């Protein structure tokens, strides 16, 4: 574990431009704050948080993320609306989206097999960092092909 941290730190020092950009869209500000701290801890990720879904499109255009984490249940535009909006935006439609939701439970999605809804992976909340980062890697690999 400790070794990993060192490796990542070295990795980030050398390739600071290469950090994966993650946009987290979720109205739970406490959750996104800690998610950001966790993802950025090792320098592998650069995270931008947007707690207001109505500002998500602007934030995404500005930040140009590599991957988007999108909460499903939000006031105003919900995850489905945002996803549809991005799908219709030529600048955003190719950015992979991972849905996060407290609506499905662990039982419905097994740890390694991620549920797919509308062609998008859905991760249940609470989610382990390990599952989340594995999922991010996977969608990035798939997008690179």
């Amino acid at each position: 574990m400790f070794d990993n941290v060192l490796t990542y730190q070295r990795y980030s020092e050398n390739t600071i431009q290469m950090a994966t950009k993650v946009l987290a869209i979720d109205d739970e500000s406490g959750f996104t704050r800690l998610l950001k701290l966790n993802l950025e801890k090792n320098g592998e990720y650069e995270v931008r948080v947007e707690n207001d879904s109505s500002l998500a499109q602007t934030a995404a255009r500005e930040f140009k993320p590599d991957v988007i984490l999108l909460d499903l249940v939000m006031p105003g535009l919900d995850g489905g609306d945002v996803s549809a909006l991005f799908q219709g935006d030529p600048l955003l439609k190719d950015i992979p989206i991972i849905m996060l939701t407290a609506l499905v439970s662990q039982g419905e999605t097994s740890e390694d097999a991620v549920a797919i809804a509308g062609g998008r992976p859905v991760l249940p909340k609470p989610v382990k960092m390990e599952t989340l980062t594995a999922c991010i890697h996977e969608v990035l690999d798939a997008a690179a092909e």
Partner: protein
Amino acid sequence: MGHANGIKTQKISRGKKKKPSPSSRPRKKASLSYLQSVIDNLPVALFAKDVTDDFRFILWNKKQESITTLPREKALGKRDHEIFSAESADYFREVDEAVVKRGKIAEIPEEIIDTEEGGEVYLRTVKVPIQDSETGHSLLIGISEDITDRVKAREQLERLNQNLSEKNRELESTQLQLIQAEKLESIGRLAAGVAHEVKNPLALLLMGVEYISSGIDPDDPNLEVILSEMNEAIERADQIVRGLVDFSSDRQLTREETDLQPLIEHVLLMTRHELTRGSVKVSAKFQKDLPKPLLDSRKFEQVLINLILNAIHAMAESDNASELSIKVTSKTLDKVELNEGARTARRFRKGDTVIYIDVKDTGTGISKKNLEKIFDPFFTTKATGHGTGLGLSVVRKIVELHDGEISIRNRLITEGAHARITLVAPRRDG
């Protein structure tokens, strides 16, 4: 015999005051038998006792015979103790002596005598003390009315009444059960939302745990933020779970002075998920220094949850922006207001301090035709599985159990419904 004697003396004494005529003798005889038949045909029991002769009976008419089931021959010349039970006889003697002593007519509204055949008869008796001027004897006339039927009817009525209040209590407990059943139903509707609301803090907690378990640097400035976020999350999850557990517990109605603001905030927390899902903008306003009404807070939460869920449903059906407004105000009534929407009798008096809880939505509103029926049990416009139609009937029952009133009408200017609960603040004496 004695009784004829009594009548005779009285008659004679009166006759004597008028001028006696020579022809009075045969007429007197005719008169006496006429009088005897009148006495026997009276619908009331008539008897007389010779006080001077140790209260022996000297008159005993037909009705008295039938009431006591004791023939005249067995009563005349006897004292109470020889024909009634010792207990009754003692009582009669006591009353008789008191009446004679007072020298005034007396009424005994209800007394019981035992009949020869072992039954009981209820009587209303008037006793009149008189003086036989001819013999100098003091007499006591008794006139009794058989009120057994009346007393029996009254007793039956009392029994019925008791039965009725028993049934009422049963009904009340059934109603409480219904309230409980409806509550379980609304818990079912809330459960998914509650799970969601609990999983969010759990997700945060897991994030915190993972951050910490990957190695702690005591100088890490994030640590403090993380720990306080985690604390908050635990509290939030705890509140929601506890709320649901409290809410589902079945208890009798126990009312205590309750602060409405935290209660309503708690309700908004329990319905947060539904509100978020429906993109409902919520505003809650509380007047300063609100009095505290006497509430069973769990039952009263059920009222507000039902109103809020109804509002959310109605707003989901409408294209308007969803806005829920809750306002709590209070005022002292300087006159009794008439509220055409309310079907119940006025519960509030001039000088009462009332509390209004207004819940307004921007939903579809309610058609005039449906407005009359919304409080009826099982009235619903929702598809099976989406509504039981019990919500508002339970709401009204609970509000009534709190001596309050509820009215629901359409908003006047904008589209939507407006529910108003009126409660009365505890009356302060002095």
